[in-house]
């Protein structure tokens, strides 16, 4: 048995033919050169898997597979033996989410104002939608890319599951090794998983134009695929649906861009019986309980936010504290998953620079991730998630010979990878690390003897020669070849230069003295360097700030809790028969109003002195777009009843808190108004800090947004290609939609379930109710007639600025009205809007609300209602009801909210002044008996928010000084949702600033 020592390994690495298994069908242009690839790695510390480490063990591989691993393994005679004493062998890492070997995704140049593309541009028997590409098998598109492979192998990866991450249904990924060989040999498994996302990627098609549209498209696709199983003749061959069904047996991976999308994806999965594996975005620690509740396994990125250049305080005031906190907390994400006992893999995907992979991983360990869990997350977990644990992930007999050899424990700061073996072939990483010269040697140089002490690591040795005195030695090394140089004892200005070769225990060779004479020398190691067994030690985790709920400047470490409250001696606007009560008390218990009256007592309740204050029911905004994300308009078709605002609630929206500061406790979040039949709406209660599901008003009658007029006929577009282009066409879109819904209802069993028509049927069957954006009397009259014809009632006409002209017709039809206080004249269809509109409609007998459609105005809705007192002499109580009880009635929730009566939800506002006065401020806003806004607490919060921000800024400065690369600061600005572009209330400073960026200014006279 000959030991193939590391001496010759450099040669091996250079000349080894990669790809051990000769592919038989390919002709050979040479003599046959079969290789068994039979190797035995001996005396190594073999980490078989994250839980099993074998000391002094042997690993045997043959034909690219592992033949044996163990401490008592016989070494075959015909195996090449590689001495691995002091070295560690790990299974090579597996990346479950990679785009290795794939073409880059071309960016979609979708533009809101571009001509419509209603159908897919993809040629062939595929889906109607360009973003649904279940038929794509990425194994077919995979091309070996040695330079990328080399980068990944350096990090320790041996195989990756890869696909071009493009589209909503992305097709299947393939497991490929990082070997340099033909694709035929490198692809380890043709299909590992089916992939999904909410992003339409390179699709140039209009639909979906919003996050809620993506959700709807995915849901419809499930239904279509189910239906397609019956081979419906009407559909012909649809390979996208066919492959979607075929792929159902594979692991299903859903890639998200933010934590709330995890819940959105999981909800779709729950509906259709699929448990997605989530490819996360790195902010999941912010809602770890919700992540856990999905029961999903995760693939987590190690891409952490870059340090921001914080030097300019006037710029930094626009970078929100949430962004700074995320910078600090992102490295805690994997640890949070481990602590919550959620299964997860780690991926290098998303790193701008892959060389940051290991430093970032070490950072995650520093922030609490255990090394064992880190190793699992890079080996066995991804292998299991992808169903390829029989191939990769551990060092077990029969698996692919993917492993790497390192100088020490893999995650330790001083450890480094020497070689990464992929499919049984060696790939150099840092081969000079094979040869560690460190130790103490007995040197004989001619007749002289001395002691040579070499300390440190390859590349950074420190050496000295000790005889009667100590001489510094310059030492350099290339693999086994060594050069030494030192000052001559006789003449310090003269150098002695030696060349030698290291054989594992000694260095021997020749040299030239200062005199020019040649001399032989030999250094025999008497004592090896002490191996540093504490290599794995990690720096103590830095103190970090708290995760707050919601994750923004106005969040709290713990969410506010329900209290029993007794508000005393206040002026109470009951909105009930007893009207306004002076010096009255309101008792709140377990989230409900228990008693209203004088001299109330309850020992369990916290007393709130209401002397001089006014108490009203919480403000309800019938028309709002706060707290929704990913676009509130699914603008791409004239009928998008399948889109649901419920799918895109954003609990982190700071505007929710701002609404609370104005006494708003519930808002009806609407789809925008850019198409005739928009999307389903969602009534929210502002339970600040809770997640999307908990923000939803429970057990309410569902609504849908409709729209008429300028927005839906796209009046701003001089060449609108989307039907309709006139109010005449709008009426026909409505008539056609309900006609189709009726016809759909008549279809027998086995029909394609159509989410759009199902929703319209709910309207016809009085299970869903309409709030319809409308302005001018002709269109109002028209929709009422369409509804009459189909036998349902238009529940609410919203905006309805010409409602006063047809109030009698609205009253006769039974429609409610939700309008503005005094907005007018900003577009042609509101030229006749008047501030007396609400009062006239109310006088005629219509149930009237005042709404905001604006995150700022909503904070003053009580004062907007007061304008009817001013302009039309409405009574104060009636005016207040327009923002409390009346909207509650039109939303069918007046049994629970809208007035102050025993048994109703304790949604209350304590005002500093008369609630219709411009001087009134909400001092406390209460939802379900929980004080969710408190003006005094808010002042303190502002102080602690600024202190936290300052702490983080100082930490960033330290990070920059510590050498961290920085990026320029950019203001964190959330887009304000409004109905449509032309609905230009334009309150935001940033909209004004945007018009002053000089790139966007075009004043050139041509």
């Amino acid at each position, binding site marked *: 048995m000959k030991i193939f020592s590391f001496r010759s390994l450099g040669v091996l690495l250079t000349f080894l033919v990669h790809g051990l298994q000769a592919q038989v069908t390919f002709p050979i242009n040479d003599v046959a050169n079969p290789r068994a690839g039979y190797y035995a790695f001996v005396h190594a510390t073999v980490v078989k898997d994250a839980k099993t480490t074998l000391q002094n063990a042997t690993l045997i591989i043959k034909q690219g597979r592992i033949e044996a691993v163990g401490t008592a393994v016989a070494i075959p005679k015909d195996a090449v033996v590689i001495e691995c004493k002091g070295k560690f062998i790990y299974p090579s890492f597996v990346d479950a989410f990679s785009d290795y070997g794939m073409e880059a995704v071309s960016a979609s140049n979708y533009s809101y104002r571009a001509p419509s593309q209603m159908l897919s541009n993809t040629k062939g028997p595929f889906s109607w939608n360009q973003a649904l590409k279940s038929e794509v098998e990425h194994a077919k598109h995979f091309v070996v890319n040695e330079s990328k492979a080399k980068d990944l192998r350096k990090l320790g990866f041996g195989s990756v599951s890869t696909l071009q991450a493009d589209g909503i249904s992305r097709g299947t990924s393939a497991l490929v090794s990082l070997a340099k060989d033909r694709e035929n040999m490198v692809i380890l498994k043709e299909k590992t998983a089916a992939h999904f996302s909410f992003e339409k990627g390179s699709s140039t098609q209009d639909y979906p134009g919003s996050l809620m549209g993506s959700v709807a498209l995915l849901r419809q696709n499930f239904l279509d695929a189910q239906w397609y199983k019956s081979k419906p003749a009407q559909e012909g061959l649809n390979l996208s649906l066919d492959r979607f069904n075929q792929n159902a047996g594979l692991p299903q991976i859903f890639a998200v861009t933010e934590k709330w999308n995890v819940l959105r994806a999981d909800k779709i999965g729950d509906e259709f019986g699929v448990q997605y594996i989530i490819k996360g975005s790195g902010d999941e620690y912010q809602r770890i309980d919700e992540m856990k509740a999905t029961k999903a396994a995760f693939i987590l990125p190690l891409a952490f936010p870059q340090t921001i250049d914080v030097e300019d305080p006037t710029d930094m*005031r*626009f970078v*929100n504290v*949430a962004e700074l906190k995320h910078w600090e907390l992102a490295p805690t994400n994997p640890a949070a998953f481990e602590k919550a006992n959620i299964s997860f893999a780690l991926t290098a995907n998303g790193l701008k620079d892959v060389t940051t992979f290991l430093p970032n991983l070490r950072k995650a360990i520093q922030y609490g991730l255990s090394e064992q869990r880190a190793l699992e997350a890079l080996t066995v977990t991804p292998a299991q998630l992808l169903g390829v644990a029989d191939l990769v992930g551990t060092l077990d007999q029969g698996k692919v010979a993917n492993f790497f050899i390192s100088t020490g424990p893999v995650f330790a700061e001083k450890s480094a990878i020497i070689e990464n073996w992929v499919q049984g072939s060696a790939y150099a990483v840092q081969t000079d690390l094979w040869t560690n010269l460190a130790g103490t040697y007995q040197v004989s140089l001619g007749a002289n003897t001395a002691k040579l002490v070499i300390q440190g690591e390859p590349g950074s040795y420190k050496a000295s020669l000790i005889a009667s005195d100590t001489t510094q030695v310059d030492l350099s090394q290339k693999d086994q070849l060594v050069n030494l140089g030192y000052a001559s004892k006789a003449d310090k200005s003269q150098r002695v230069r030696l060349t030698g070769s290291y054989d594992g225990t000694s260095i021997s060779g020749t040299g030239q003295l200062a005199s020019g004479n040649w001399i032989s020398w030999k250094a025999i190691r008497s004592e090896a360097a002490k191996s540093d067994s504490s290599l794995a030690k990690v720096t103590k985790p830095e103190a970090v700030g708290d995760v707050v709920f919601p994750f923004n400047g106005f969040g709290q470490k713990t969410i506010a809790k329900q209290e029993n409250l007794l508000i005393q001696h206040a002026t109470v606007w009951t909105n009930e028969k007893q009207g306004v009560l002076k010096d009255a008390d309101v008792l709140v218990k377990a989230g409900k109003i228990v008693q209203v009256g004088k001299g109330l007592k309850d020992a369990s309740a916290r007393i709130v002195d209401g002397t001089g204050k006014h108490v009203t029911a919480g403000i309800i905004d019938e028309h709002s777009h706060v707290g929704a994300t990913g676009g509130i308009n699914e603008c791409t078709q004239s009928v998008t009843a399948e889109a649901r605002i419920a799918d895109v609630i954003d609990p982190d929206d700071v505007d929710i808190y701002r609404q609370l500061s104005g006494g708003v406790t519930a808002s009806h979040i609407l789809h925008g108004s850019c198409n005739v039949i928009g999307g389903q709406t969602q009534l929210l209660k502002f339970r600040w800090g809770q997640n999307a599901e908990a923000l939803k008003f429970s057990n309410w009658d569902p609504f849908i947004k409709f729209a008429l007029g300028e927005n839906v006929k796209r009046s701003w577009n001089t060449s609108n290609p989307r039907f309709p282009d006139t109010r005449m066409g709008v009426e026909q879109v409505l008539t056609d939609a309900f006609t189709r819904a009726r016809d759909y209802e008549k279809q027998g069993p086995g029909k394609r379930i159509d989410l759009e028509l199902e929703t319209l049927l709910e309207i016809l069957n009085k299970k869903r109710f309409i709030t319809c954006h409308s302005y001018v009397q002709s269109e109002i009259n028209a929709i009422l007639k369409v509804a009459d014809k189909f036998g349902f009632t238009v529940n609410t006409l919203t905006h309805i600025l010409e409602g006063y002209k047809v109030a009698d017709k609205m009253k006769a039809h039974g429609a409610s009205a939700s309008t503005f206080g005094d907005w007018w004249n900003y577009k042609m269809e509101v030229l006749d809007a*008047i501030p007396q509109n609400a009062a006239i409609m109310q006088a005629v007998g219509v149930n009237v609300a005042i709404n905001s459609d604006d995150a700022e105005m909503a904070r003053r809705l009580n004062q907007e209602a007061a304008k009817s007192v001013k302009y039309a002499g409405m009574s104060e109580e009636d005016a207040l009801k327009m923002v409390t009880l009346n909207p509650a009635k039109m939303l069918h929730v007046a049994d629970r909210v809208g007035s102050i009566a025993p048994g109703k939800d304790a949604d209350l506002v304590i005002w500093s002044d008369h609630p219709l006065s411009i001087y009134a401020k909400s001092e406390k806003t209460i939802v379900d008996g929980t004080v969710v806004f408190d003006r005094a607490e808010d002042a303190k919060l502002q102080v602690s928010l600024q202190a936290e921000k300052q702490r983080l800024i100082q930490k960033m400065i330290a990070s920059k000084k510590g050498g961290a690369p920085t990026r320029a600061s950019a203001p964190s600005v959330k887009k304000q949702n409004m109905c449509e572009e032309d609905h230009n209330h334009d309150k935001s400073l940033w909209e004004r600033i945007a018009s002053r960026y*000089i*790139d966007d200014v075009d004043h050139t006279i041509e």
Partner: protein
Amino acid sequence: MKKLLIPIFCFLGLSLMAQETMHPSPAQTKKIVITGATLHIGNGQVISNGTVSIDKGKLTILTSAPTLSADVDHIDATGKHIYPGVIAPNTNLGLVEVSSTKSTVDYDELGEINPNIRSIVAYNTDSKVINTLRTNGVLLAQIVPQGGLISGSSTIVQLDAWNWEDAAYALDNGVHMTFPALINRPNGGGGRRGADSDPVKAGLERIESGRVFFREAKAYLNEKTHAAINLKFEATKGLFDRTKSLYVHCDLVKEMLTAIDFAKEFNFKLVIAGGADSWMIADILAANQVAVILHEPHALPAAEDDAVDQPYKTGAQLQKAGVLFTICQDSGDGYTQIRNLPFMAGTMSAYGLTREEALSAITLNPAKILGIADRTGSLENGKDANIVICQGDLLDMKSSVVTHAFIQGRAIDLNNKHTQLYNRYKYKYNL
């Protein structure tokens, strides 16, 4: 003694007519005496049960009992309040009718350097919006062009006129600059030149081109005669002798600091318009005697982490620091919302200003800033009788009902398109 009933009856008679038949009032011929009201002078002072006399369009506060005779129109305003007329600075009122409809938009001219562009010549006295403002006590406005770097010259108008010549109250007395944004793009978003361009550097270069213009204008104006007349230079004349103000439209600290520096070079009288972050440098603004026309207080905080009520309390912070300030309605559809200026002052009062300080912020302060305080802005002897009589608190929609308003002593018609449509439909429904 004869009570002033004529105009009121006259208005009732008009009330069912279309706005097209409403007309400006003729010059005052008869002396008017208003008694019994609480006078809000506009400078902080309040006089209860005061008497105001209006003669030849001018005001006098009477300290002794008025002489009432047949040749005097008497208004008994007992229990009511009298205020100086509200002044709306920095608006495109009359330069646009319907903001979404381009053919009605006349405030944004092509070109970078446009001091010669004059807003007044496009000001439409027949805009349907104007009368709705008067009904809430807004009697004067500064008509401001937009666009370019130097946007043009503004004029102060009174809101009861047959044509723009009648309307002009202080002609061409301001030159407006719109500063480029001196901050990185939000969320790292790219512009036409892509995300790599440095907007701050590009913005400063553009501002420098403005400096170059004024340097050349100053030199040009040192000579009286020129072989070739430069209209743009000529239009800057009043800036150098400080008879006109330079209004720089900007919001952020670095922009305002640059504006102060800019004005210093030429010794211009500087007013900041916008000023969202002015509260952060209130002391600097005060020390440099820079006035501020604040963007509407009814706005969301500029930064996500700002206090939820920051725009509401900015006025109080400026007041405390001694900055002369007023407020405007300058956003997209702002001109239709100028009638809410008194209520925005009310909000500022809820958030730190006294009621009278809040009133000053929309009366005497803008008069001072716009250079017309010698003629209007307060109830002081000898000033134009631009006044409002209100049944309740002008700043609170809960009680504000304007019963009379006078511009230069002329009792103006308080009807508008809205009251007329209201009446039309009250008739329909028999209300």
